[in-house]
C-alpha cells in the first residue's frame, strides 16, 4: 500500500487527465497517511513542501505528456521515487479520455485501477525486498581516466570478483551487479537478459547478460546461491546500469548457499580499486 509518501500531482485544469491526477492524489491521502504537495501553492510555500518532500519518498502524478509535475520536481531538485502518467495509464487500460473536467464513470474506473496498481506494486516491492533493499548508503571512490569517471563503492559489505562484478552481502542474501568498469566499456547498454528466478547459480556462474552495440557480456556472479529476485526495471530500462550500476542498476538478488567459501575468491574495495586501475592502464597498451 502506498503509505508515508509525499504526492505531487499535476492538478492541471485544462485537461481531463489533470483532474484525474488530482483526484488520484486525494484518494491516496484519504485511504492512507500520505501528504499532498500542491503544485500551485508550492510556488509560494517552498519551504513547507521542501520539508515534506525531503522526509518522504515522492510519488509524482503527471496528467499528460507535458509532465508539468515531473518538471516541477526536477526544478525543485526533488528525488522522485515513483512516477505515473495518467494519459499513459489510460492507454494501457484502454480507457479513452475526453475533454470533460468533471469525473464520470470512466474516469473514476481509471482512478480505481490506478490506485489498485500502485498499491499492489508497492506490496510486491515490499515483500520481495529484504534488508538488502534498505536505502543505499554507498560511499564511492572515483578514478578518472580522460573524461570518464569510474566509481567503486567503499562499503565493507561489498565484495568484488576479478570479473568486475560486485555483491552487496547482508545476512544470507546478496544483491549483485556489475561495476563502472563494465558499463563504461560497454557504453550504452541496450539489452538486459535476466537470470531465471529460482535458478541455482554456482560461484562465477552466469547471472544474466547485458549487451550494447559494442559488445555483449555475461554477468559473472561473485557468489553462489539461488536467484530470489531480479531487477525487473532493467528489462525496460537497461540504461540504468549505465547511470549507476551499484544502485538503480543492480542485477539480481541471491540467497547465499556458501558465502564463507565464496569469500575466499573475492576481494574488497582496496584490492578491486587497484585491479580496476591496472585494467584501465592495460587498455592503453
Amino acid at each position, binding site marked *: 500500500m502506498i503509505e508515508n509518501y509525499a504526492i505531487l500531482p499535476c492538478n492541471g485544469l485544462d485537461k481531463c487527465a489533470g483532474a484525474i491526477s488530482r483526484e488520484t492524489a486525494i484518494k491516496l491521502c484519504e485511504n492512507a497517511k500520505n501528504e499532498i504537495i500542491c503544485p500551485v501553492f508550492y510556488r509560494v510555500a517552498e519551504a513547507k513542501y521542501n520539508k515534506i518532500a525531503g522526509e518522504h519518498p515522492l510519488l509524482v502524478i503527471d496528467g499528460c505528456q507535458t509532465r508539468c509535475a515531473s518538471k516541477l520536481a526536477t526544478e525543485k531538485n526533488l528525488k522522485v521515487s515513483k512516477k505515473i502518467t495518467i494519459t499513459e495509464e489510460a492507454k494501457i487500460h484502454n480507457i479513452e479520455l475526453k475533454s470533460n473536467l468533471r469525473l464520470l464513470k470512466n474516469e473514476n474506473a481509471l482512478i480505481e485501477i490506478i490506485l489498485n496498481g500502485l498499491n499492489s506494486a508497492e506490496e510486491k516491492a515490499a515483500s520481495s525486498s529484504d534488508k538488502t533493499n534498505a536505502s543505499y548508503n554507498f560511499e564511492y571512490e572515483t578514478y578518472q*581516466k*580522460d*573524461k*570518464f*569517471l569510474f566509481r567503486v563503492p567503499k562499503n565493507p559489505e561489498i565484495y568484488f570478483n576479478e570479473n568486475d562484478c560486485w555483491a552487496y552481502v547482508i545476512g544470507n542474501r546478496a544483491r549483485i551487479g556489475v561495476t563502472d568498469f563494465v558499463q*563504461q*566499456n560497454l557504453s550504452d547498454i541496450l539489452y538486459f537478459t535476466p537470470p531465471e528466478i529460482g535458478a541455482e547459480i554456482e560461484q562465477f556462474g552466469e547471472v544474466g547478460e547485458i549487451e550494447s552495440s559494442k559488445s555483449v557480456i555475461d554477468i559473472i556472479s561473485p557468489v553462489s546461491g539461488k536467484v530470489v529476485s531480479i531487477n525487473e526495471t532493467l528489462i525496460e530500462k537497461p540504461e540504468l546500469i549505465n547511470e549507476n550500476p551499484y544502485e538503480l542498476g543492480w542485477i539480481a538478488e541471491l540467497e547465499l548457499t556458501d558465502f564463507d567459501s565464496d569469500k575466499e575468491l573475492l576481494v574488497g574495495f582496496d584490492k578491486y580499486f587497484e585491479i580496476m586501475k591496472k585494467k584501465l592502464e592495460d587498455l*592503453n597498451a
Partner: protein
Amino acid sequence: MDELKVGVISCSGEECLGGTISRLATRKVLEELSFVSTVTLCLPLYLAGGKEERDFAKVFPTIAVDGCDKLCAKRSTEKYSGKINGSVDVSKIIGNENALNTDTVLIKDLTEEHLQMVDKVASEIIKAISAINPDSYSGKTFGGCSCGS
C-alpha cells in the same frame, strides 16, 4: 614528455552549415590526429551539467570550435569551466555566407567542396592545439581511452 591531452568542444549547430562543418572537423581531428590525444567533449551534455565533461574542461586545456560568430561553444565553456585555451570560428575560415547557409546541413548532402571546408577547419583546429604549451599541463595525463562515449 608526457602525452598532451586536449579537450575539443564543438558547437554542432543545427541551423546552418557552419555547425555541420564544425562537428565534422572536430570528429576528423579526433580520429586522425596522433601526436596529441584529443577528447571530444559533448556540448549538450556539458550544458546539461554533465560532470565528466565539465570536470575535464576545468583541468585540461580545451578548445572551442564554433560554426558561426555567435560563438556559443566558446561562451558556454567560459561560463562553466573558466577560460578556454583556443577558439576556432568556422565562419572566419569558410566565410560567413557559407557558414550561415541553411540549405545544406545534413551530412548526406555534403559535396566535395564542403568536405574541403571540413579539411580546412580541421587544420585550423590542429593549429590551435599545437599552440598550447604542453609543459604547463604535464603530469595531468591519463592516456588514451578506448571506452565510453
